[in-house]
C-alpha cells in the first residue's frame, strides 16, 4: 500500500522535498506525523514542535526508554527586507555554504510561493579582482523578476526561503539533493520504526524528529525533548562527512561503508560497545569516527539533559554537507536502521545508565 512499501530511495526523495528551516519545522510536521504514524504505536507533538513516535516495548513496567533523535530542521534562509526594485535580502538559518549560492534558484515560501534567483553581476560589469572573492551573504540578493509592488505585497519580512533543487540520481544508486542533512536521518527513523514493529524491543523506543538543531549554539529540540522524556539512552542520527578529495586521514568516513559509530566524550562506552557488537554480530559494515570533544549533533544536548543520558551518535556518510548537492548512498541509510533495530532489540530490560556502587 503505497508508502508502506517504498524503497529508501523513494523515502529520501519524499523527505528531502519537505521545507522547514529551524523554527519553521511546523510547516512540514503534519507530513512527518503522518509518515511516522504509518509504523509507530502513537505519534504526538510536544510544545516546542518536536514530533515523538512511540514504539511500546514488551518488558514489564516501568519500562526504560531509548530516545532516537534526528533533526527535522534543515538549512535555508529568511527574508530580512525588501528593497527598491523588489530585490530581497535574506539572513541565513543554519549555515548554508555561502560559496555555493550565487546564481542558484530558490523557492520563497510566501502565499502563494514564488521562485527567485540569487542574483549575480555579469562578468563585464565586475571590478578587477572581484571574481576572486567569495560573495558574503549580505551582498547577495534575491530576484523574483516581479515588480516591487507585487513583491512587497506578497513577501513579508520573515518569509522562509529554501533552495530549489530536485534530487539527482548518480551512479551506484547514490542520490544528490539539498536536505540530506538531516532528512536521511529522518529516513533512518522511518526505517527503524518499520523494523521495530516487526521485532519489538523490551524497552520503550521513542523516535523523535527534533527541532532547531542547525541554528544557534544549543540543539533546542534535543534538549527539550530529552528533558520531557528522561530516557536512559539517547542516540542521535545525523550525517557525517563522507570521503572527499582534499581531506585528511581520519576526518571522513567512506560513502557506502555503512554507518559511522562516533567515539568520544559525547559517547557512552557501553552504548558504543553495544552498537559495535550488534554490527559485528550481523556482519554489517561500519566505520568508527573519532569525535574527541564535540560530536556536533543533538547528542551534545541530550547527554546533559535532566539527570544525564547515556548517548551515542550514528553517522550517515554524506558528501558536500551544507550545499544543495549533498550526496548519500541509500544503502547506508538502510544499514543504519538495521543496526539500530538490532541493537535496540538486544537491550536488557534491567540495564540502567546509572551504576550504584553503594
Amino acid at each position, binding site marked *: 500500500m503505497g508508502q508502506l512499501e517504498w524503497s529508501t530511495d523513494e523515502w529520501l526523495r519524499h523527505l528531502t522535498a519537505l521545507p522547514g528551516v*529551524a*523554527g*519553521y519545522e*511546523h510547516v512540514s510536521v503534519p507530513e512527518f506525523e503522518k509518515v511516522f504514524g504509518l509504523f509507530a504505536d502513537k505519534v*504526538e*507533538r*510536544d*510544545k*516546542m514542535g*518536536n514530533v*515523538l513516535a512511540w514504539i511500546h516495548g514488551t518488558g514489564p513496567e*516501568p519500562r526504560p526508554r531509548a530516545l532516537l533523535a534526528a533533526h527535522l530542521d534543515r538549512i535555508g534562509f*529568511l*527574508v*530580512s*527586507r525588501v*528593497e527598491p526594485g523588489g530585490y530581497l535580502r535574506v*539572513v*541565513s*538559518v543554519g549555515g548554508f555554504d555561502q560559496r555555493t549560492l550565487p546564481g542558484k534558484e530558490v523557492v520563497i515560501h510566501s502565499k502563494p510561493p514564488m521562485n527567485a534567483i540569487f542574483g549575480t553581476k555579469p562578468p563585464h560589469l565586475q571590478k578587477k579582482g572581484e571574481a576572486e572573492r567569495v560573495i558574503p551573504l549580505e551582498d547577495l540578493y534575491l530576484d523574483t523578476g516581479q515588480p516591487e509592488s507585487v513583491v512587497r505585497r506578497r513577501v*513579508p*519580512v*520573515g518569509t522562509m526561503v529554501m533552495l530549489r533543487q530536485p534530487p539527482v540520481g548518480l551512479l551506484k544508486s547514490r542520490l544528490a539533493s539539498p536536505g540530506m542533512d538531516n532528512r536521511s536521518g529522518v529516513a533512518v527513523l522511518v526505517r527503524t520504526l518499520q523494523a521495530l514493529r516487526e521485532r519489538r524491543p523490551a524497552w520503550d523506543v521513542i523516535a523523535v524528529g527534533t527541532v*532547531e538543531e542547525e*541554528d*544557534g*549554539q*544549543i540543539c*533546542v529540540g534535543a*534538549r*527539550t*525533548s530529552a*528533558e*520531557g*522524556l*528522561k530516557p536512559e539512552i539517547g542516540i542521535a542520527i545525523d550525517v557525517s562527512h563522507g570521503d572527499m578529495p582534499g581531506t585528511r586521514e581520519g576526518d571522513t568516513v567512506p560513502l557506502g561503508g555503512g554507518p559511522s559509530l562516533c567515539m568520544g566524550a559525547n559517547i557512552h562506552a557501553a552504548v558504543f560497545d553495544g552498537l559495535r557488537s550488534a554490527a559485528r554480530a550481523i556482519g554489517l559494515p561500519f566505520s568508527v569516527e573519532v569525535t574527541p570533544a564535540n560530536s556536533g549533533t543533538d547528542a551534545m544536548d541530550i547527554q546533559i539533559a*535532566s*539527570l544525564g543520558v547515556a548517548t551515542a551518535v550514528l553517522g550517515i556518510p554524506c558528501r558536500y554537507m551544507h550545499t544543495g548537492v549533498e550526496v548519500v548512498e541509500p544503502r547506508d541509510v538502510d544499514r543504519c536502521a538495521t543496526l539500530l533495530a538490532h541493537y535496540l532489540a538486544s537491550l536488557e530490560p534491567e540495564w540502567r545508565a546509572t551504576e550504584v556502587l553503594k
Partner: protein
Amino acid sequence: MKPRPGSLDALLKTLVPAYGPPGRETGVRAALRTALRGVGRTREDALGNLHLHLPGSGPRLLLVAAMDAPGVIVTRVESGGTARIDLLGGRGAAEAIGSTVLFADGERALVAYDRPASGKEGGALDSSSLYLATGYDKTAASKRFPVGSVGMLEARLDRLGDQWRASSLDNRAGAAAVAAAVLRSGRIPYDLHVIFTAQSELGSRGAMTGAFGVEPEMAVVVELAHVGEAKDQSPVTLGEGPCIGLKEHGYIAHPQALEMARKAAKAARVPIQYLVREEGSSDAGAVRRAGPGVPTVLIAIPARKTGGPDSLVHARDLERTVDLVVRLLATPPVPKPVPRARTPRRGGK
C-alpha cells in the same frame, strides 16, 4: 502632583539611574519593589531575579524583562592609584570611555583610556586598555576599590526631542515598560508570573533559571533591540512602533506566541515592525529552552546606539510597547489544543 500609577516617565526616572550591575542588582531591585508595592507577592531567587506573582486562574504566563545594566569589576589596583577593570556585560570597551562608574557604597570613578603615543589606534579596544581613574593614591584606592569591587556605568535619563537618552535604556526601558503594563492592567485572565531578571548582560543567566523555576506555558520577553547606526538601511526605524522578534541568534518566535502578539497589536491598534537578524541575543533565547521548552515571543523596543555610552529610544515606541503588553495581558488565551508530550515523572528532578 503624584504621577498616575504606571506612568512611564516616573518609572524611567527611578529605574534608569538605579544601581544594578550584573550580579549586584540591589538598587534596581529595591526600586522595582517600591514601584510595584501592593500589586502582588514578590521574592528574590538564588541568582537575584525579582519575581512578582499575580495568582489567577488561566494558563501560566511569564512576562520577562532584564533589570541589570552594564558594569565593571576591579581586577587590580596599580601603583598610581588607578584600577584595572574587566567589563561586565555586552558593552564594547570604546563605548565605556568617559563614563563615571558608581559603586554600591557610593564611591565613584572615571573610565579612562590612554591613547597610544603614536596617536594611532591599533585594532579593536578591549577592557585591558581601560582603567579607572580613582583620584586617590594606591593605598587609599586599594581600600576604597578593592579587587572584586563591582560598579555600574552611571546612567542619567535625558530627553532629546521625542527620544529618551541614557546608557541603561537597555534594558531599564524594557523593565519600565513591563512594570508600567502590570500597573495599568486590570483583571488578568492568566496565572501571571513576572520576572525582572538578573545577570542578563552576562548571557541571560537569570532568565535561564527563573523560567525553569516557573515552568510557564507561554512567555513574553520585553527587551531593547539596537537596530543599527543612523546611516544603515535597517528595515526597523525608531518611531514606527515596537518590534515583534521573529528571529535572532538562538531565538525563533513560537508560532502560537507570535500569533498572540500579532492579534494583541491589531486589537490595541499598535503599529508593529518585525525583527529578523542573525545576530543579537536576549533573554528570549534562554527562556524558550528552559526545561521542556516554553513557547516564547520577543517584543523588542527599537533603539539606536550612538558610539558612546548612551542609547536612544523613541518615547512613542515605549508607550506603544506598554499598550501592546497591556493588551496581551488582558486577552484571554485562545483555547487551541497543543498536544502535550506525556512526561510521567520518574523519580529524581
